Every structure is written in structure tokens, then in C-alpha cells.
């Protein structure tokens, strides 16, 4: 169609819709009535006209309704009692709602509405998790972790036992856009990926997109993980915390000015180091004692918000986290620290009942630094990525059929890659290295959520993205479309297509997340990564054994282009010519996911199954290729993945949670042959040099594990005696790996040696055999945590 005709058609279409019947707009913000926290995804539904909407990520809703007609508007949100208002609109009306908690009273109705909204929405391939669910489910060493719980949803396999790495629908771990209050978090891991940077006490909401990406998101190929921090209780001062076996945490929140402004401060710190220092002290002087390195991590979340008037709200939030690793003795002092800093300044403005804007300035910084001081000599190596981002988004309730969303963003990136400084104290020896880059990333988008008919909803949009770096400019058009056809009131079909471009890349040569992985920009040689994903599926709400369950079934196919890998033996550390080690190729992934979820009653939970297949190949680069360009499976090509999650409210005092996961073993690159290597004069003879063939040809044994959790509420009698008592506490007992399954973390081939003699009678070690050894991460691992809130 000619563009002029298309514009004319769209204008006529919107006009017809707009003038078909006189309508006014009902808008407002939905909050938790007890704390004043805005609620994301709360449902607004008007049965008389079968119209509904949900609050956006800032708690705002806007819905066009017929004028002069008595209507009953129902507001609902998971875990809260429904709220109803009778209205007759004679003009645009603002209606803010404070929801009251009442899980026991209206749970079934609430859940049903939430399912109905899922059946109506064009959103697909989305997973959410609440902090309540996170706290009910088992956690490693008592550390609740929202990223690990989201891995229990279908289509999000983890990078390995106990790690927070995410490999979503065949994507790599660098292909996840992780944002905390809209600021990018470049490394979401503490302790080499065993814990995430997100403190559950401070998190309000987490949403993970596996596909069907809305156009407001861009910059990564495979997933978007949008984490929102709590805003702080603006009604009363409150707090929460916990004492665990490896860490403690404390959150304080309260009003600065009641109902108008509030704050939240949340921090946690591990105390491995306090224990290990005592162990080291006790072992001082013991022969062959190897001191345990000093390690701890901490993080701090803060947020304040101010209601500047009826139409304006200002939010300021920040995150600061560090991992500290130290190892020293009389001759050296080794230090290694890494962490993220993010800060966000956000301004919400409501122009009118139909138009809402969100403008954000964010700052992100991820860096690591390694330093070592040996007598007379020092060494320091650091890398970092730092962003400053400005973005603005508009939500416009155009009419009862169309909701527009449009916006723009610009990000300035600074990269320091492997900055090295080393030298002797006297200046006799001195050398340095490293690279610095900068780049600017742009994004411009528009999308329309269009109710084409009572049964068909379409969300179509376009994102224009670009990146410039040192005279090189890349851009990409990213069409996004998602549609939902509601076949019946309890069954809908969905489909989506999304193209994504990625302009910054993680340089990581390991299957596991390391803090030393560095971010690298697109350059003349390194082109942006591209993905195209198609997903189709359906959702159904039905009764199974008398209880309501929600079934979701999706299939996806994803094409990946300009993928980055590394030549064999790539040197990624302190390498001034890093790009020369890269190879560029493509790949594909496909699979299916099915989940059956039950959210009502004393027993809740879900069962999820994922089938997927991933291939990458055609990798060539300046210094060579990978397997002559042949396709291979990455190590996270997990064919089958099952998770069963259950949460059971036994009675007022006891709640239990259990998870069972099963996954095909990850792939491993093991040597298939060996040879002896004599080497040059002065070098030692190597009896066994492993010879590695093609990549990832060995599959580790299947993985399965049962974790259990029991929450024992304390002080219930006191609460009964004094219902106004605010202090609540519980003991949480977690048992990880309840049946002590030894899952393979990795496998290696060990050579056994025996002492022998050479021709001159000297003692030598002779190889006698090879055994395959499996290393597991967790034995049965209980933990006890004391939690409180007031």
C-alpha cells in the first residue's frame, strides 16, 4: 500500500473508532493500600462492556468507557481482595485505588481475573514471579534468589547447577537485557554466579520476556529481565530482615511525608570471611595448611520517591554492590573486586487522562579490578563498562481500541578493556596495556495495542536502533508483532515475531559466568548480533480434578546471525588485539514449552516442560575458524527440561515449598585422545597431553534434584492476643538436594600415577591409568534462616 494511503486509512480507522460512541476516560494509579506501593499489572475490568486493561509498570491505567452509563469497575491483583467501584462517566475521571490485602477472602475471583487478563493479552512468552513465591520456595544456603526461581519456569534453563546464568531459548548468557529500575545491570552475579545481585527484600516485581518482545525493549537478542525495586512504604515506617548462615539482610522503609513521599534502604552482607579468618587463624602453623582466601559480598539498594502533585511523581533509586576477594601472606597481597553501580532518576507525568509519560536518566557501571603486590613489584588489571542513558516513553490511550506506546532512548557507553599496569617499585620495570572505546546507542520505537475485534488483539510496532563507534555506524529496523485470538472465554491462541539487534557483546570464553568477562562494543570488524524469533502458542483455563488450572503451550524458532565465538585457545585476558581472537557465525534454536499452573487453593505451583535444540556454526574470523565452520551444539543445548514446583499452606503456622527439576545433561568438551609430549631441553616430559576433538560431543549425565522448604511462623499467639502487633517472624528451613543426588557440575579425566625408578635408579612418577571423575556442587545441604518484619 502506498504510504499516503496507509496514513489515510489509519486516520480514518482511528477516527471511526473514536467517534463511534461518546466515551470518557477513566484513569489513575493502583496501589497497595497498606504500603502505598504501586501495583504493576493490576487488572481493571468492566463486565458490562467487556472492556479491560492492566496497570503499566508504573501502576498507571487508562481505559475508555461509554459515557452516561452506570458501570461497575472491578480492580483486582494477585494476593489482594478485589475492589469494586460504581461509576457513571460524564467527563474524564481520575480514580486512584488503594487495594487491601485479603488473600483468603477473594482469592479465587482474583486469580480468575488474572487468568482472564492473560487470555486477553497479546503478551506471550512472558514469565513473572512474585517475591512471595520466591520466599516460599527453597533456596541455597537460605539465600532467596529471584533469578534462580525464574529458572524454574519453562524455557529458561540455567547455566549449570547453582548458577544464575540464563540461557533463554538458545541464547547465550550475554544476550539477556537485565534492567533494575530501568538501569542496565551488566553482571547480575555474586560469587561467580552462585548468587544474584538482586536482594529479594528490595524487589517488587520481576518480569522475564523470552520472546514477543515489546518494542520498548532492545539491545539484546534473547531475553529481557525487567526488575523493579520497591518504592518504600508511604503510610508507615516498617522493616524486614533476616539472619542466615552465610549472610544477613535488613530493609527499612517509611514515609518521608505520609502519602506523598517515601524511602527504602535495603542491604545485605555475607560473612564467609569472618568464618574463614577464624579457620585460618586456628590453622596457623599447621604443616601444609593452605589458608582459605578472604571473600565476601555486599549490596545496598536505596530508593526515594516524591509525589510532586496530582500529575507528577519523581523516583530516585540506586544500587551498589561489590564482591571482594583477598589473598595475602608475607610476600604478596592479592586483591580482586568486582561489582555494579546503578542509579535511576525517573519522572512520571500525566499530561491528561489519556497520556502518561515516563522519563528516565540512568547510570550503570560494572567493573572489576585485580591487583597484586609482591615484594618490590605491583600489578593491576581492570575492565569496565559505564553507561549514561536518557529515555522517554509515552503511553497514550488513543481510544477504546488502541493504546499507543512510543518513545526514544540514547545511551552513551564507555568501555575499558583489559587496562593493565605493572611495574617494579623502583621503576626499573614498567609496562601497560589495554584499550578504551566509547559508543552511542540509539533507540526509537512506536507500538499500538489494537483490539481489532472482541476476539482479536494485535500489538504491532517497530523499533529503529543504531550504534556509532569511532566513525562506524550501524542501524537496524526491528519489526515486532504479537497477536492474540480468543477462541472462547477460556482458550486463546497467540503468535509473535520479533527482530532484535545487539550492539554490545560479552567476551567470555567460559561456560560459566566470570567477573572477568568483559563487554565489548560493535566495531568495524565486530558487527551487531541479530536474532529473529517466531513463537506460536495457546493458553487455556480449565478445571482439572475440580480445581482451576491454567495451561500455556508455546513453540518457538529462532535464527541467530553475527554470533560471536572465539578461536580455540583464544587469549582474552590483557590482550590489546582482542578482536583478532573473535570468530563470527550464525545459529538457530527451536523448541516447545508447556506449563500447567495452579494458583488457587492451599496448594499452588506449576509443572513445566521444555524441549529445545540449539546449533551454532559457520564461525570464521581473522585468525581462523571453529571446526572448519561446521555446526555444533553449545554446552547449554539441553534437550529436555522439567520443573515441578509446589507451595502448600499447611495451616496458619506452617507453609511448605518444594521443587523438583530434571534436565538432560549439559554438553561437555572432553578429550578423546592423549599423547606424550617430550618438549624442549630444560622442560619436563609430559606423560599425558589431552587431545580434544570436536566441541561439546559428550553429554553429562542427566540432572535432577529435589529441594524442600518449610516456613514456621513464630509469635502467632501474641498476634492473636494483640491483632495490632506488627512484629512478625518466621524460621525458614531449606533442604537443598534432599535425596543427595550427586549431579555433575563438571567431569574431568584424571591420570593416576605411581612411583617408579628410571634407568639410573632415580624416583620418577609413572602414569598407570585414567579414571573419569565427576565433581558435584551440592551434597544434601540444609540451611536455617530467621526472618522478621515489622
Amino acid at each position, binding site marked *: 500500500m502506498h504510504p499516503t494511503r496507509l496514513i489515510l486509512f489509519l486516520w480514518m480507522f482511528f477516527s471511526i473508532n473514536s467517534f463511534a460512541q461518546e466515551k470518557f476516560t477513566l484513569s489513575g494509579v493502583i496501589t497497595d493500600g497498606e504500603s502505598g506501593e504501586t501495583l504493576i499489572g493490576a487488572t481493571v475490568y468492566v463486565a458490562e462492556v467487556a472492556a479491560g486493561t492492566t496497570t503499566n509498570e508504573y501502576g498507571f491505567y487508562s481505559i475508555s468507557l461509554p459515557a452516561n452509563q452506570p458501570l461497575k469497575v472491578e480492580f483486582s491483583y494477585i494476593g489482594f481482595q478485589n475492589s469494586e467501584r460504581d461509576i457513571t462517566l460524564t467527563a474524564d475521571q481520575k480514580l486512584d485505588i488503594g487495594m487491601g490485602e485479603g488473600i483468603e477472602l477473594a482469592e479465587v475471583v482474583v486469580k480468575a481475573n488474572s487468568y482472564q487478563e492473560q487470555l486477553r493479552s497479546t503478551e506471550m512468552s512472558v514469565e513473572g514471579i512474585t517475591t512471595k513465591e520466591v520466599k516460599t520456595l527453597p533456596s541455597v544456603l537460605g539465600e532467596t534468589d529471584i533469578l534462580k526461581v525464574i529458572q524454574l519456569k519453562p524455557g529458561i534453563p540455567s547455566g549449570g547447577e547453582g548458577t544464575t546464568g540464563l540461557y533463554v531459548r538458545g541464547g547465550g548468557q550475554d544476550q539477556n537485557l537485565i534492567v533494575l529500575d530501568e538501569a542496565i545491570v551488566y553482571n547480575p552475579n555474586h560469587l*561467580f554466579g552462585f548468587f544474584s545481585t538482586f536482594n529479594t527484600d528490595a524487589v517488587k516485581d520481576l518480569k522475564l520476556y523470552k520472546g514477543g518482545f515489546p518494542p520498548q525493549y532492545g539491545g539484546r537478542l534473547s531475553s529481557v529481565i525487567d526488575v523493579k525495586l520497591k518504592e518504600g512504604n508511604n503510610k508507615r515506617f516498617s522493616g524486614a530482615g533476616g539472619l542466615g548462615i552465610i549472610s544477613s539482610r535488613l530493609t527499612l522503609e517509611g514515609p518521608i511525608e505520609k502519602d506523598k513521599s517515601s524511602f527504602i534502604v535495603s542491604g545485605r552482607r555475607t560473612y564467609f570471611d569472618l568464618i574463614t579468618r577464624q579457620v585460618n587463624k586456628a590453622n596457623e602453623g599447621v604443616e601444609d595448611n593452605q589458608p582459605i*582466601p578472604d571473600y565476601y559480598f555486599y549490596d545496598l539498594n536505596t530508593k526515594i520517591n516524591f509525589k510532586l502533585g496530582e500529575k507528577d511523581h519523581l523516583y530516585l533509586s540506586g544500587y551498589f554492590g561489590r564482591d571482594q576477594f583477598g589473598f595475602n601472606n608475607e*610476600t604478596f597481597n592479592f586483591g580482586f573486586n568486582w561489582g555494579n553501580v546503578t542509579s535511576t532518576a525517573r519522572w512520571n507525568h500525566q499530561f491528561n487522562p489519556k497520556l502518561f509519560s515516563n522519563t528516565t536518566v540512568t547510570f550503570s557501571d560494572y567493573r572489576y579490578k*585485580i591487583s597484586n603486590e609482591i*615484594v*618490590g613489584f605491583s600489578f593491576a588489571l581492570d575492565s569496565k563498562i559505564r553507561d549514561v542513558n536518557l529515555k522517554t516513553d509515552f503511553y497514550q490511550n488513543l481510544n477504546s481500541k488502541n493504546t499507543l506506546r512510543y518513545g526514544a532512548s540514547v545511551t552513551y557507553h564507555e568501555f575499558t578493556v583489559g587496562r593493565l599496569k*605493572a611495574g617494579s617499585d623502583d621503576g*626499573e*620495570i614498567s*609496562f601497560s*596495556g589495554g584499550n578504551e572505546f566509547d559508543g552511542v546507542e540509539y533507540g526509537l520505537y512506536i507500538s499500538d495495542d489494537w483490539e481489532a475485534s472482541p476476539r482479536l488483539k494485535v500489538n504491532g510496532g517497530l523499533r529503529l536502533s543504531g550504534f556509532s563507534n569511532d566513525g562506524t555506524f550501524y542501524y537496524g529496523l526491528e519489526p515486532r508483532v504479537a497477536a492474540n485470538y480468543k477462541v472462547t472465554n477460556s482458550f486463546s491462541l497467540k503468535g509473535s515475531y520479533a527482530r532484535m539487534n545487539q550492539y554490545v557483546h560479552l567476551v567470555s570464553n*567460559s*561456560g*560459566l559466568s*566470570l567477573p572477568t568477562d568483559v563487554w565489548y562494543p560493535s566495531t568495524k570488524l565486530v558487527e551487531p548480533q541479530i536474532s529473529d524469533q517466531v513463537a506460536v502458542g495457546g493458553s487455556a483455563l480449565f478445571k482439572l480434578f475440580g480445581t482451576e488450572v491454567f495451561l500455556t503451550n508455546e513453540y518457538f524458532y529462532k535464527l541467530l546471525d553475527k554470533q560471536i565465538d572465539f578461536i*580455540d*585457545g583464544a587469549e582474552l*585476558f590483557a590482550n*590489546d588485539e582482542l578482536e583478532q581472537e573473535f570468530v563470527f557465525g550464525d545459529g538457530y534454536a527451536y523448541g516447545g514449552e508447556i506449563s500447567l499452573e495452579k494458583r488457587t487453593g492451599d496448594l499452588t505451583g506449576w509443572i513445566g516442560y521444555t524441549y529445545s535444540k540449539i546449533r551454532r556454526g559457520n564461525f570464521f574470523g581473522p585468525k581462523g575458524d571453529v571446526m572448519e565452520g561446521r555446526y555444533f551444539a553449545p554446552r547449554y543445548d539441553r534437550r529436555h527440561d522439567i520443573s515441578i514446583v509446589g507451595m502448600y499452606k499447611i495451616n496458619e503456622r506452617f507453609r511448605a515449598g518444594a521443587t523438583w527439576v530434571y534436565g538432560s545433561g549439559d554438553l561437555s568438551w*572432553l*578429550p*578423546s*585422545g*592423549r*599423547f*606424550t609430549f*617430550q*618438549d*624442549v*631441553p630444560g*622442560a*619436563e*616430559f*609430559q606423560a*599425558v*597431553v*589431552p*587431545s*580434544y*576433538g*570436536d566441541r561439546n*560431543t*559428550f553429554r553429562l*549425565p542427566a540432572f535432577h534434584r529435589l529441594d524442600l522448604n518449610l516456613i514456621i511462623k513464630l509469635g502467632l499467639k501474641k498476634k492473636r492476643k494483640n491483632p495490632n502487633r506488627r512484629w512478625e517472624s518466621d524460621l525458614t528451613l531449606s533442604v537443598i538436594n534432599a535425596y543427595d543426588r*550427586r549431579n555433575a*557440575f*563438571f567431569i*574431568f*579425566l584424571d591420570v593416576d600415577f605411581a612411583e617408579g625408578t628410571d634407568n639410573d635408579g*632415580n624416583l620418577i612418577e609413572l602414569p*598407570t*591409568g*585414567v579414571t*573419569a*571423575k*565427576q*565433581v558435584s*556442587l*551440592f*551434597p544434601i545441604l540444609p540451611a536455617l534462616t530467621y526472618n522478621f518484619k515489622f
Partner: protein
Amino acid sequence: MKFQYILPVIFLISIFGACNLTNDVDLELPEYDRQPVLECYLEPGQPYQLLLTRSFEFFAPFDTSDGQFLENVIEQGATINITHDGKTVTLVEGLFFNPFTQKIFNYGSPEIVPEDFDNAFELEVILADGNTITSKTTIPVKVPIDSVVIEFESDAATDTMARALTYFTDPDPNIENRFRRQFHWNSLVDSSAQQDFLATDQFADNGRIVFGTGFDYPVGDTIWNTVFNMNRDYADFYESVIISVQSNGNPFGQPASIDSNLGGTADALGIFTGLSYSREMTIIEK
């Protein structure tokens, strides 16, 4: 071990050590075809010698009591020629043991490798089964050690522990040069090297490169400093060997296939390279 892997490995060793979470498992490795393995280092002034063996399937037994063991390891019946500057040297089969370096070869010639840094040496091997191995190399120029400086932390008479700083000059700052540094204490052959690693001229400071040690060596002891100037092929091969050894057992490591510089039909592993190094012996004195 690659530097960035050290910390995670220390951490994991601490955990696994504490919990004993390592156990033996049975596994079937992918099928493996044995390959010829060739090592030939052409050192000026030394005779032409070459070691030609075969690789094994990883789980193959090491049983040396088997009379067939040597036959299994050594590649016999090969015809080997090395051509240089129009002259071809044929290496004959035998056992050639050097008691000073403790190195053994199964093909050799009394001919001496000439000190020629310009002209290439070409290798041609025809194995008993008719397959071939070919390669080509040059001898890199020797990089002299400029000085070995012995330093003590203080002038005090009681301070008897010294360190050694070994200085040498980058032979050509315009191209990337790669070196192998070895440092031996007390013996060149009876103990493994205290230091043995690869380096590049990336670490040159105004064309000068220095390697150091800790203050660990007492007065009266003998140390050997060695600097190899490496061909690119040799450096790549040696690096791939090191990575292969270190990756087995390291969950954070990324293995590598062996980067050989051998052609022909035999799909052989190994290296054919010129060898050039400077070595200095020093007695620690105050």
C-alpha cells in the same frame, strides 16, 4: 593456568575439598582414531633428531609390562627427509638419547643443523602405511640475554635471599614476537622449571623486556635463566598444549584442539620448528 581462572578454581577446590564431592564415574568417550605425533626441534649446532610416536585413546592402558608397549607407542618404519638449502638429510630409525638434556628421539642423523636464520627447512615423512607428514620452518634468531641482575631486599648482612631480574631486548618492535621464559634453580634436568611460560613483546618497556623472581634464592645457589625466541607456529602449538593440559579438570577453562603445523595425509599432531634460545647460569653472590 590462565590467570582469570585462578580464583574460581581456588574457591571451588576449597568447597570440594571440604565436602568430598568428587567421585569416579564410568563414561564412554567419542570414538577416537589414533594419530601420529611428531616433535622435531632444529637447534643449530645439534644433530638432526626427531621423535615420532602415536597418540592413544584416552582410556587406553599404560601397562609397560606388555612387550608390545614400545611398539604401540613408537611409530616405526617411517622414511624421513629434511631438506635445507638444496641439501636433503635422511633421518634413520634408532634410539638417540642425550644424557645432558635427558631427551630421547627415535629418528636421527649425525648431520648437524646449520646456523641459518634465513632459509627454510622442509620436512617430508612417509609413514609405513603410506600416509605422509609435511611441514616447513625456519630457525628464529637468537635473542641474547642482556643481563641477569641479582638483587637483595636490603644491604644487611643477614639478608641472604635474592631475586634475579633477567633483561633482554625485543629483536623487532614492529612485529609481534613471542618468547618462552624458563627459570631453573639448582638443576636444569633433575627438577622442573621454577618458571616456564609464554610471553609476548606486549610487555616490552622501550624495547626492553624483563622477567623477575621473588626474593627466594639463597647465596651460593645456582640459577639458570633461559629465553627462547619462538616461531609463531611453535608458540601456537605450545600454547595449545598448555591449554589442553590445564583445561582438563577446570570447569572455567575452555579447551583447545592441538594447533600443529603439520600437513600431509596422516592427520598428525605435533611441531616441526627451529629452536633458538639463550641460557645463562648464575651463582647467587652478595
